[in-house]
C-alpha cells in the first residue's frame, strides 16, 4: 500500500504532508531561484547596474555600513519606532477589542467609527501629524499606531466574538460570574487567535515604517533609502529593503515561538 504512493503523488495530493527535508529543500530552492534570477539580471547586465545593483555590491555596502556602525544605528532607530508604535497600539487594542467583541454595548458605538477610520489612508494623515506632533520620533510612532490600531481593534473584536457560546455557558454553570467571563473564559479562549492577529499586524507595522520615515526623519532605514535615491545609490536602497525584510522575518518567528510558548494547547 505504502509503496504505491510515490513521492510525486504525495507532492500533488491536496493537504498531504511532505517530509521536512523536502519542505526545506523547496524553500531553499525558492531563495536560490530569486537570488539567482537577480544575479543573472544584474551580472548579465540585462538591467543596468544603476537601476539594479549586483548581489555582491549590496553585500559590500552592508559590510561597509556595518563596519562604521551606521547600519546598526539606522536599524535600531527603525526597530524602536515600529516596536513602540506596535506595543502602544496592542496594549490598547487587545483589551478594547476584547470588550468590543464581548459586549454589544461597546461594539455598537465603536464599530461604525472604527470602520470609518480604518479605511482612511495613513499617508493622508502624515501632514496632519507633522503639524500636530512635529517631526520627532513621536510623529513616526503615531503613523505606526494609526496604521495598526484600528485594524487590530476590528480583528481582535472578531477573535473574541467567535469564542463558542457554549464554552461561556459551561463556565456559568461552573460558577463563573458574568463580569468574570471576559477575562476567565473569552480572553484565554481567544488568545491563540489574538496572537495570530498581532503577528499579522506586526507585519503591517513594518510596512508603515517607510511611510513614516520617508517624510520626516533624520535616521532609520526608510530615511537612508530616501537619501540614497537622491544620490542614485541603488545598492543602499536594496540593503535597506533587505534589512526590513529580515527584521520582519525575525519578529514573525519570535511571534510564532511566543504563541507556541503561551498557548501550547492550540494547534
Amino acid at each position, binding site marked *: 500500500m505504502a509503496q504505491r504512493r510515490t513521492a510525486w503523488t504525495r507532492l500533488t495530493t491536496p493537504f498531504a504532508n511532505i517530509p521536512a527535508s523536502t519542505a526545506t529543500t523547496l524553500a531553499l530552492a525558492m531563495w536560490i531561484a530569486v537570488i539567482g534570477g537577480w544575479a543573472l539580471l544584474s551580472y548579465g547586465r540585462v538591467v543596468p547596474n544603476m537601476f539594479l545593483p549586483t548581489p555582491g555590491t549590496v553585500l559590500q555596502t552592508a559590510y561597509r555600513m556595518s563596519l562604521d556602525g551606521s547600519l546598526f544605528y539606522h536599524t535600531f532607530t527603525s526597530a524602536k519606532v515600529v516596536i513602540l508604535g506596535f506595543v502602544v497600539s496592542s496594549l490598547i487594542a487587545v483589551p478594547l477589542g476584547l470588550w468590543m467583541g464581548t459586549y454589544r454595548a461597546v461594539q455598537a458605538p465603536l464599530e461604525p467609527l472604527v470602520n470609518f477610520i480604518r479605511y482612511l489612508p495613513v499617508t493622508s494623515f502624515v501632514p496632519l501629524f507633522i503639524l500636530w506632533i512635529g517631526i520627532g520620533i513621536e510623529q513616526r510612532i503615531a503613523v505606526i499606531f494609526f496604521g495598526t490600531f484600528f485594524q487590530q481593534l476590528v480583528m481582535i473584536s472578531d477573535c473574541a466574538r467567535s469564542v*463558542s457560546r*457554549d*464554552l461561556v*455557558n*459551561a*463556565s*456559568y*454553570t*461552573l*460558577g*463563573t460570574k458574568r463580569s468574570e467571563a471576559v477575562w476567565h*473564559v473569552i480572553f*484565554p*479562549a481567544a*488568545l491563540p487567535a489574538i496572537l495570530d492577529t498581532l503577528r499579522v499586524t506586526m507585519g503591517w507595522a513594518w510596512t508603515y515604517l517607510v511611510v513614516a520615515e520617508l517624510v520626516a526623519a533624520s535616521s532609520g532605514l526608510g530615511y537612508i533609502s530616501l537619501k540614497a535615491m537622491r544620490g542614485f545609490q541603488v545598492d543602499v536602497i536594496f540593503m535597506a529593503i533587505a534589512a526590513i525584510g529580515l527584521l520582519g522575518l525575525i519578529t514573525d518567528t519570535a511571534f510564532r515561538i511566543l504563541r507556541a510558548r503561551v*498557548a*501550547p*494547547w*492550540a*494547534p
Partner: protein
Amino acid sequence: MGALIMNASSQTAAGSRVVVTETVKANNPAATADPAGDRLSAGTTMAIEDVTLRYGDANGVLALDDVSLQVAKNEFCVIVGPSGCGKSSLLYLAAGLNDATSGSIKVDGREVIEPGPDRGMVFQSYTLFPWLTVRANIEYGPKRKGLPAEQRKRIVDQYLNEVGLAPFADHYPAQLSGGMKQRVAIARALANDPAVLLMDEPFGALDSQTRGTMQKLLLRVWERQQKTVLFVTHDIDEALVLGDRVLVMTARPGKIKAEIKVDIPRPRSMDVILEPDFIALKRRILGLLHDEIDEDH
C-alpha cells in the same frame, strides 16, 4: 412510593393532549421490589411549573407550551422528544442560561434566575476549556468557589478516578477522544457537587460503541454519587437504559405528552435492551413519538 411521581404527572395533564402514565412492573422475580422506591422518597429537587418559552415578540415561535414537571431527589429523569421540540431549550432554562417567557423553575425551593454551580451541565458540544489540562478543567468549579488547594486536589483526584482518567490528568482536551472529553465534562460538573446535573444529549456526538461505554460509566458514577439528573436525549434506548422515568415531549411547541416509569431493576446491564419489559416500554415510546412525527408531515 410511586404516588409522588404519579402526582407530578397529573400536573402535566393541562393542555389538549392526553397524558399517558404507564408503569410496567417487571415480571422478573429477582426484581419484585420497586428499585427506585426508597431512593426517591427524599423529596423534590427540581420543580418546573407552567413554563412557556416564546422566541422574539408575542408573535414569535412558541418553543415550549406550559410545561410542568418535577424531578425527585436522586432521581434519574430523562426527557425524549423529536428534534426541535424544545427539550434542550427546557434544559437551558433550568440551567438559568435563558429566561422563560412565563412560569417558574425552582431547584431545592429556590427560584432559578441565573446560572449557578448548583446546576451543573454537560453539553452536547465539547465545552472543556482548551487552555486548561484535564486536571485544571475539573478544578475550575472548586477554584471559583474558593476552596483551599488541598481540598480541591482531593476532589479532582476523586473524580479523575471516578471517570477513569487519572493517567490523562495532565493532558489538554485537544489530546483526548470525544468520549474522554465528555467524561471530563461529567467529572467537571460533578466536582461542584451540584443539586442537579443537567445533561443535554451529552453522548449525541459519539459513536454507538463509545455511547454504550459512556452510559455504563454514567450509571456507575450516578449510582455511587447519588445525584439528581435531568437528561435530554432523542435516543429511546438510552432513555430507558438510564432513566427511572422517561418524559415524552410533543413536537414544537413542546409539551409533556406522556410520562413513563421505567421499572427495570438496577444495576442495569447493557443487555437490558433485549429484555421483554424493555422492549414493551420501547414500543410504547416509539408509538408516542411516531404520532408526533406523523403529525408533523
